[in-house]
């Protein structure tokens, strides 16, 4: 909880200043000192608000922007886990509907590494929508936002069977080189069957 630590340290130091302010009022110190302490206190409180809200905002931004080259390298592996990439977008209703299946897989099966690849910025360059979505839905799986233009030049490099339609899911066993690509929404249990097939 880094947020909480920030909150605590600022609360303590702000409190110190408040006490100091009350104290110097009691002592009837001179006006300049009292004004000075008051100003420091106001600055403290202002800073506290800024830092706390930024810390909160950053915490919601746990989706990393990833370039195509990085994603392509990742897919090749090697990895001890079965890699599962789900290509989705916040605007895609069937994608949003099937996300719980991937969340469940991510929770249940530690032999599998689930990555949810948001395609949102292909249409809208501002990733804020994705951050908000991930925050609101409390997504636990790893989320990345693919930062790449001109999909025609790279869709086939992800998988030649991909039409470009969302949702799409790629399952890879980097040890055997075996891949499965599904270019439609998955049914309950289908994911587990595909993983069992690719594992053996």
């Amino acid at each position, binding site marked *: 909880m880094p947020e909480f630590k920030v909150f605590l340290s600022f609360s303590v130091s702000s409190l110190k200043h408040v006490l100091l302010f009350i104290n110097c009022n009691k002592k009837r110190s001179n006006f300049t000192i009292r004004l000075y302490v008051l100003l420091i206190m106001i600055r403290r409180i202002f800073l506290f608000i800024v830092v706390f809200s930024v810390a909160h905002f950053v915490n919601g931004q746990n989706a990393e922007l990833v370039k195509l080259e990085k994603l392509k390298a990742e897919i090749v592996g090697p990895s001890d886990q079965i890699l599962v990439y789900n290509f989705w977008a916040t605007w895609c209703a069937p994608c949003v509907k099937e996300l719980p299946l991937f969340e469940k897989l991510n929770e249940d099966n530690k032999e599998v590494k689930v990555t949810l690849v948001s395609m949102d910025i*292909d*249409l809208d360059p501002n990733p804020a929508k994705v951050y908000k979505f991930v925050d609101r839905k409390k997504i636990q799986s790893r989320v990345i936002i693919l930062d790449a233009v001109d999909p*025609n030049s790279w*869709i086939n490099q992800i998988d030649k069977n991909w*039409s*470009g*339609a*969302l949702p799409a899911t790629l399952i890879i066993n980097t040890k055997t080189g075996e891949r499965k690509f599904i270019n*439609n929404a998955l049914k309950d249990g289908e994911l587990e069957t595909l993983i069992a097939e690719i594992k053996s």
Partner: protein
Amino acid sequence: MKLSNSLLTFCLTLLFFAGSPVKKGYDVGDTAIDFKLKNVDGKMVSLANYKEAKGFIIIFDCNTCPYSKAYNDRIIALSKKYSKDFPLIAINSNSGEDSSGDSFEDMIKYAKKKGYDFPYLVDATQEIAKTYGATNTPHIFVLNKEQGNLKVAYIGTIDDNPRNAKSVAKRYVEDAVDALIDGKPVATTKTKAIGCGIKWRDA
């Protein structure tokens, strides 16, 4: 009556399983079939109705997909530009039941609101999308008339920038149609783009 009904269902199921998994849709160079689908004005539309056309721009589209919306003005502009030689025909193959906002009534409203001056047809059985191999919206098939046959000349997306029409570098559909009008070979015959999957009815 009941017996004949169940017999019919059985035969249809058999037909469905026999025919469905083999087809993967058209490739460039294939001969496309004509169709007869209901337009938003209630009339049936066939490609055979267009005697003067040199070919067609067939667009599998819908009301609801954000990519369709992003390309809407560009689709209207394409229709205006090529209405004489390569009329544009939009087809909605989304299942109205599985995709709210894509019913025939919604199509009528949408075409009216956007001022479509081209047919916007409903592919209620999804048979045309399956035969053509359409997967996304919008998904474009440029057909060229050759000795009375409709040859598939281009399959893919409209251009290379869904975000912004002003930043487009490659106009795939326009380049393909311009080449066909000039009697030249089409340079880029196949492209892919991110898009909404067609909402198939649950089998």
